[in-house]
């Protein structure tokens, strides 16, 4: 889609906006609907595709809808009489993958928004780059954007602006996701086929979002009603996906359903190997537009990792059983109602559930562990676009009920002599929030967004309350560039008890209690952003400072494995993080991609750790940069590359040891001496991935794509830690830094019709 804005200078009180709406072939579209906010102006094009309206000057959001075409949204600053040439894209054209279309969620909107610290990703961003095993992955794509630091190589953890991995509110169609990973962290739960757009908010949080300190990852799945049945499938090396989109009532109702499953277990089974592991995802959505003023979407997601292994060496029926299941399940309802008075009312209802079960059994003994968190929630948001002059008002309420069974361990037989059965105290907590924010123009150049979120958590007889003021201000330097300031106060009432190095599916979510206070943060950021409309290039430089209170850690020496007494081991401290982020992004044309760089610091202090002195966070990576590029080669080829450079994470290696007598003279004990916590920096790492795609002819109805590539083409390790290894010949010991993923080729085939 393209917008050409040709300004005229007339008067400041009321301006005339006229123009045309056409498709990508230049054909003018009659009776296309054009909505302009915050004026709540609705107009239609005439038979020649022309329109004309009078509106007040200021920042406008426009929305064009036309049957069979993508809904188009954009933010445009109108200061004088203007002519718009608007081009929208037929839905069918989206299937032409050879030409990378402009995003519907363009960075022009980002520049025009009052807020900074927000990144937008689309399905194309994920599909257009090489990845591990060829599996397009939202989280891996996010790692390449500024402000997002990855943890262990390949894992789905994201450390945003010096925060912890549990400080990200991950929403899938409005429902929280508590475990974002499959395959023990190496793939995320988001099936790329169904992801429509992603908003990653790292700063300048709107008042309607809260509950986590560091980021909001708002993932929305497809929500357009197709005009005909569509099927797509993708066959990769480790997983396959299939998706069906089906209209039910033309322009009124449709559904889609999509599935993904790994099949290494099946393939290796054919050739005689037993790999008893797989995961699957099922996504589905029912979309219903009963009228122009009502939209209803019902979403479902279920995914599970399954390991089921029985090993019987002697064939006598007495073997070792290992069983592991972990999965998310979410259901959500979204109801949007637009009133004639200009209110847009959104109602979200959701249920989300995450649980894991681990069982090991051998002979008479068995040990099993179980944990579960289940949420029910509701959120109402009321938005009025022109409540006062050009002011936009947003207000609403939010409620979530957490039911948590943190850790239940059952042991039977002789293993119970080492590990007895136990259970953590289950918890039920309620999170409540009310929020209001208003956005308006102070002057022609200055626009502000002031909000307040009041949040509370109730656990038993204990309650916590926190006011969370939010402020965003945008000063327009020129039409295409702006300075922005953001301040956010955040509070978090639920925490993940996890190993500091890596999250696992067996991590435990735990709410605030009498003794565990909510985590809180202040974040300030200052940004300069520019979007060059002709070249479609976006520039952003942003600095931030974040202070954090009552962060969660646990006493030294606490082993979290099957630990039901973890709550008494939790300690709280403070943290601070600061840095600068740079991004240059070209979002359309034959050559697209971005260059990102983050310079950051992240520090922690706990009374019970490191003698109460400040220390580096585990993933305090000083430099974090990436070059992401995609280039179309003719009509049927596209090449892509990713080059990433990241500073080493922090680590606490063993630097000494000593011998003591074990109790009662039962032997000698070799005890390790660790370095100061996170005092050693691992070696910096860099990685190059290359990919190529070969498409079917664009005019074919049955469209296919072959994708191939190589991850980590020069096979360099990204260190996960420091270990001590013995030389195979001499036995001499030395420190080594192992990595997880070396050179990994991939190939996949996708089709749609």
């Amino acid at each position, binding site marked *: 889609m393209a917008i050409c804005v040709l300004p005229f200078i007339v008067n400041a009180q009321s301006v005339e906006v006229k123009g045309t709406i056409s498709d990508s072939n230049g054909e003018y579209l009659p009776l296309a609907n054009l909505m302009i906010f915050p004026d709540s102006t609705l107009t239609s094009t005439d038979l020649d595709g022309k329109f004309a309206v009078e509106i007040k000057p200021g920042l406008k959001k426009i929305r064009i809808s036309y049957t069979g075409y993508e809904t188009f949204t954009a933010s445009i600053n109108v200061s004088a009489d203007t002519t718009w040439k608007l081009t929208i894209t037929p839905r069918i054209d989206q299937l032409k993958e050879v030409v990378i279309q402009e995003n519907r969620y363009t960075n022009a909107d980002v520049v025009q928004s009052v807020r900074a610290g927000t990144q937008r990703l689309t399905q194309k961003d994920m599909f257009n780059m090489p990845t591990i095993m060829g599996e397009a992955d939202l989280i891996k794509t996010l790692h390449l954007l500024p402000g997002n630091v990855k943890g262990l190589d390949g894992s789905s953890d994201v450390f945003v602006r010096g925060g912890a991995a549990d400080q990200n509110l991950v929403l899938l169609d409005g429902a929280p996701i508590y475990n974002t990973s499959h395959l023990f962290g190496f793939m995320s739960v988001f099936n790329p086929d169904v992801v429509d757009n992603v908003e990653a908010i790292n700063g300048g949080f709107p008042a309607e979002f809260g509950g986590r300190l560091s980021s909001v990852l708002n993932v929305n799945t497809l929500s357009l009603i197709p005009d005909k049945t569509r099927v797509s499938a993708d066959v990769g090396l480790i997983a396959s996906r299939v998706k069906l989109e089906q209209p039910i009532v033309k322009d009124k109702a449709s559904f889609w359903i999509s599935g993904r499953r790994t099949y290494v277990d099946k393939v290796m089974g054919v050739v005689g190997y037993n790999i008893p592991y797989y995961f699957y995802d099922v996504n589905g959505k029912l979309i219903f537009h009963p009228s122009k003023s009502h939209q209803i979407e019902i979403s479902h997601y279920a995914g599970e990792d399954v390991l089921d292994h029985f090993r019987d060496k002697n064939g006598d029926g007495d073997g070792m059983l290992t069983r592991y299941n972990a999965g998310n399940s979410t259901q959500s309802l979204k109801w949007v109602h637009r009133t004639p008075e200009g209110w847009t009312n959104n109602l979200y209802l959701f249920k989300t559930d995450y649980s894991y079960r681990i069982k090991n059994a051998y002979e*008479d003994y068995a040990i099993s562990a179980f944990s579960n968190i289940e949420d029910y929630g509701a959120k109402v948001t009321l938005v009025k676009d022109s409540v006062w002059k050009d002011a936009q008002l947003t207000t609403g309420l939010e409620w979530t009920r957490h039911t948590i069974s943190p850790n239940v361990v059952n042991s039977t037989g002789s293993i119970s002599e080492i590990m007895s059965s136990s259970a953590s105290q289950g918890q039920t907590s309620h999170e409540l929030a009310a929020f209001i924010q208003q956005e308006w123009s102070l002057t022609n150049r200055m626009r502000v967004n002031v909000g307040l979120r009041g949040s509370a958590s109730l656990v038993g007889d204990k309650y916590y309350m926190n006011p969370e003021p939010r402020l965003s201000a945008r000063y327009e330097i020129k039409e295409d560039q702006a300075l922005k300031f953001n301040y956010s106060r955040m509070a978090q009432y639920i925490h993940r008890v996890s190993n500091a190095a890596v999250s696992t599916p067996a991590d435990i979510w735990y709410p605030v209690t009498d003794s565990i206070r909510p985590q809180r943060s202040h974040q300030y950021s200052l940004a300069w952003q520019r979007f060059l409309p002709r070249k479609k290039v976006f520039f952003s430089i942003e600095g931030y400072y974040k202070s954090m209170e009552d962060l969660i850690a646990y006493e*030294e020496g606490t082993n979290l494995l099957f630990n039901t007494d973890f709550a008494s081991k939790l300690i709280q401290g403070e943290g601070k993080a600061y840095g600068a982020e740079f991004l240059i992004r070209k979002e359309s044309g034959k050559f697209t991609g971005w260059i990102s760089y983050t310079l950051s610091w992240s520090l922690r202090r706990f009374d019970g750790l490191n003698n109460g002195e400040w220390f580096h966070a585990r993933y305090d990576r000083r430099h974090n940069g990436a070059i992401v590029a995609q280039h179309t080669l003719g009509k049927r080829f596209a090449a892509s590359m990713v080059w990433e450079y990241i500073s080493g994470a922090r680590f606490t290696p063993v630097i000494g*040891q000593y*011998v003591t*007598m074990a*109790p009662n003279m039962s032997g000698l004990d070799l005890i390790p001496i*660790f*370095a100061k916590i996170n005092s050693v920096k691992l070696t910096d790492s860099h990685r190059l991935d290359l990919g190529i795609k070969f498409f079917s002819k664009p005019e074919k109805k049955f469209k296919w794509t072959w994708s191939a590539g190589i991850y980590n083409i020069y096979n360099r390790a990204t260190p996960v830690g420091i270990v001590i290894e013995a030389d195979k010949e001499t036995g001499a010991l030395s420190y080594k830094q192992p990595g997880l*993923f070396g050179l990994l*080729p991939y190939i996949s085939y996708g089709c749609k019709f």
Partner: protein
Amino acid sequence: MKVMKTNYTPALIFSVLAIIFTSCLPDSLEVKSIESAPAQIVVTSSVLPDTSIAILVTRSIGALEAGSDTDIQTLVKEIAINDANVTITTQGQTYELILMQDGVYQSLGIPIVPGNEYSLEVSCPAYGKVTAKTIVQPRVNFDTVKADVWNNGYNTYLAQVAYSITDPTSENYYMINVQGAARASLIANMVNPDAYTRFFDDKPFNGDNYSEIFRAAPKNYYRGDSIAVSISTLTRDYYDYLKVRVQNRMGLVEVFSEPVTYPTNVNGGRGFFTLHLPDVKVMVL
């Protein structure tokens, strides 16, 4: 003429997957330099069955000086401090301990009286001086104790121990230890299944009689084996230290294990100075 096509698909898939999984691990990167922990005096203590006190005095070593394959007895010979001056002071009297062998200093004449405080001082030319203090806890003896072999119906044979004690009214922290009494080598650390150790405090039964039955897992014992079962009362700080050791015996993967600074009551050094009086019963299964 039609040419019969061979189906290479399974072989192709297998080959591709084999390439993937074998190429998955890149070569480890070298580590340029990590500063080693400075050598310090390490002190550990034990009360021997003849009620003499033994103090093992060694030095700490670098992480690369010993590994999992190192023979610990040989290592102790190498790191033993044999030129130390070791004294224990109690009730105003100072006793000098004599070097027996390989860093083990011993004294026969020190009275070990529950409730008394004992101060240890160790000094040597190379590593300076360290000090530590402990209080001997009241001795608690088994009221009854017996052991038998228990079979789980498969091939697991454990020592099942039944015992009872009378808990003093004070706050007490207990350690029970089961190990083969006739084993040739007692060199085993706590993760070694040859020695089974459990810890508990008396909060649930303070001042009352207490009895329980437990099985010393997971070492197999058989009829005719001799085992030693002992019970000791510990100071709170030594109990906490041992709990940390036990909690960290199940570290899964080195790079993901959490670092621990093990508690010590040795000022200027490492290790633990503690004097507890075990009640030891040796029995034949």
